[in-house]
């Protein structure tokens, strides 16, 4: 009979051993770089975080990846490239993450991919739209999110369909903003000749845009294209409306940044968004695969909010990492990269595959990211009620577009 002296400690040690063995597999660490404090877009960062957590829960509730749970490790970049660089460095060297994802601002992504490339760690770019991110040609970088060239083509074709002759764009002074403004110009020159186009760069930190807006009063354009993130975007829309430049019977607004589905949109923009056309990466009337519907439902249950495009982009980013590990049966970088290059997987928005074409923006880009164009037709209108004027993969339907009277 074991003595009492050793019985209880042995029993307790056995309990610990049993619990340890039940969770023997180490978690798979995935690094996340998002803006959680100013001057970065914290609203975007919060939406990305929500999407990743919904996806992580779905993955872990299903048993994890190859028996291991996914663990997300967050770093706040503040939307600043230097901090993004430091964040990725810390995630890779100190936290030993197998991949990095979550980045939603192009300037920060451009800094982060340099570190990921140096350490040869997979980097899933969640929402950096700048084509330059792709043009670098880094094998570690994969882009399941939208890209500026796609928006530029959409804008040019929309301007052509609307019969606009004079288009002015306001872009923020970032890699994303200026990059997209230039691309739109190039696409208009190629696809919609005869349209006069110019763009003005606005400092996203400055708040008074009137000196840039006032000169338009004498000769208002047919379309103002907004290429900014909140809060600068909201201030621009309000100041355009305040001065009577747009929206008017003569001048419409086109939101190229897709901000109309942001949670704080209506608390900042009143009738300044009237009849605004929106480049949308998500609309409730878009057909969604089953995984997309599940993510949307879980998100709404968790936050009581309506889904938005960043939710799906973030979720897809994490699901892709999980799929790569599952397919490769490995967390080694080369194995994951090879798995991602050959992937054909149905995510939350459609079937994802990455182009292997090494030239330009196409490298490791999901080229067929679905998008729609919809129109805001009433103040405080939920996204679900905003009118779809262009279905995925179809041209703009002019008969559905409403003009301001």
């Amino acid at each position: 009979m074991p003595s009492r002296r050793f019985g209880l400690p042995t029993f307790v040690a056995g309990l610990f051993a049993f619990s340890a063995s039940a969770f023997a597999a180490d978690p798979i660490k995935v690094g996340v770089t998002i803006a959680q404090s100013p001057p970065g877009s914290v609203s975007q960062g919060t939406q990305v975080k929500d999407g990743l957590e919904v996806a992580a829960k779905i993955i872990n509730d299903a048993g994890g990846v190859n028996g291991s749970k996914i663990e997300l490790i967050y770093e706040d970049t503040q939307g600043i490239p230097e901090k993004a660089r430091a964040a990725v460095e810390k995630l890779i060297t100190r936290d030993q993450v197998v991949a990095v994802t979550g980045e939603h601002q192009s300037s920060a992504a451009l800094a982060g991919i340099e570190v990921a490339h140096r350490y040869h760690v997979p980097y899933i770019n969640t929402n950096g739209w700048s084509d330059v991110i792709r043009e670098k040609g880094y094998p570690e970088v994969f882009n399941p999110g939208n890209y500026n060239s796609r928006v530029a083509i959409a804008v040019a074709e929309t301007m052509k369909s609307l019969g606009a002759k004079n288009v002015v764009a306001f872009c923020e002074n970032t890699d994303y903003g200026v990059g997209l403004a230039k691309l739109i110009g190039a696409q208009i020159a190629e696809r919609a000749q005869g349209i006069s186009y110019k763009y003005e760069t606005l400092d996203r930190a400055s708040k008074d845009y009137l000196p840039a807006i006032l000169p338009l009063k004498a000769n208002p354009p047919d379309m103002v294209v907004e290429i900014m993130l909140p809060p600068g975007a909201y201030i621009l829309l309000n100041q355009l409306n305040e001065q009577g430049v747009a929206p008017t019977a003569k001048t419409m607004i086109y939101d190229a940044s897709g901000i109309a589905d942001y949670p704080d949109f209506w608390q900042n923009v009143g009738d300044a968004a009237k009849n605004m056309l929106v480049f949308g990466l998500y609309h409730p009337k878009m057909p969604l695969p089953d995984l997309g519907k599940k993510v949307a439902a879980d998100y709404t249950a968790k936050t009581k909010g309506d889904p938005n495009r960043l939710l799906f982009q973030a979720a897809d980013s994490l699901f892709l990492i999980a799929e790569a590990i599952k397919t490769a049966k490995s967390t080694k970088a080369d194995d994951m990269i090879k798995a991602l290059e050959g992937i054909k997987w149905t995510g939350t928005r459609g079937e994802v595959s990455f182009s292997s074409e090494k030239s330009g923006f196409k490298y490791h880009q999901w080229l067929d990211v679905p998008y729609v164009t919809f129109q805001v037709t009433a103040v405080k209108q939920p996204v679900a009620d905003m009118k779809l004027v262009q279905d995925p993969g179809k041209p703009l339907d002019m008969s559905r577009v409403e003009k301001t009277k």
Partner: protein
Amino acid sequence: MLTLDLLINGLIIGVFYALMAIGLSLIFGILKVVNFAHGEFYMVGAYAYTLSALALGISPWVSLPFALLVGLLLGLVVERLLMRPLYSGYTSWGVMRDEYAVIVTFALSIFLINIVDKVVGPYAYKGPALIGISRITIGPLAISGHRLIAAMVAVTVIIVVAFIIRYSFWGRQIQAVSQNRLGASLAGIDTAKASAIVFSLAGGLAAVSGALLANIFNPTPDVGVFPAIKSYVIVVLGGMGSVPGSIIASLILGVFESFGGVYISYQYRDTFGLFILILFLLFRPQGLFGEKAREV
């Protein structure tokens, strides 16, 4: 017509700059230090105005004095807890006053930005308009109704503050302390109380500025950073410690940025003030109305 538009816009923006800069100038005048958390007093005022109106459903004309009160209290608390060591016993800490002020106010700035970000959240909130008219058209000019009313309120506040500083009992004591702290103390003036009043007043003015601009610039946790930078430029241009100098410099800067943004370059608009600042520091460091330093 564009010229008139730009002039009006420049003057209106200049008035808001002045409201912000006066407080900073007063603090420098009496404490001889720069408050690097001044932009956050602006931010707190903007949020106090916006959230009280939105959450409590009260009129913006009630939220505005509420924001002023919050700014006054914040200034008072900051002075009492953080700035007192500057003139009572700081030397025993072995820390020089300038370094102390920089470190403490920078830390306060970072703290306030992050606490608001965490407590209120990162999303922007558009403040309510003081008047329900979105656009007032005067001939070919179109001005936001709120912007016009807010500018008039700002001018009124500036006049009242200038009157208080110049003619009131405490205003004269503040002037005495800013001229010579030791001398004022020897004359029986409570210098600590004067400092507290100035800091509180500065907080109130910045808060009112933030509140008035909340409908125009949609408050976020870092909304005060940019106005603060403008304020530092204005205080130097006007002459550190000179309230009239701050007012004049504000109007000049507002108009210059407005015209420069159209006729020179909009992209470099915010650098104009910094460029002028460099010129003044090189050729007229005392600013428009400041005095050259004298040592006795």
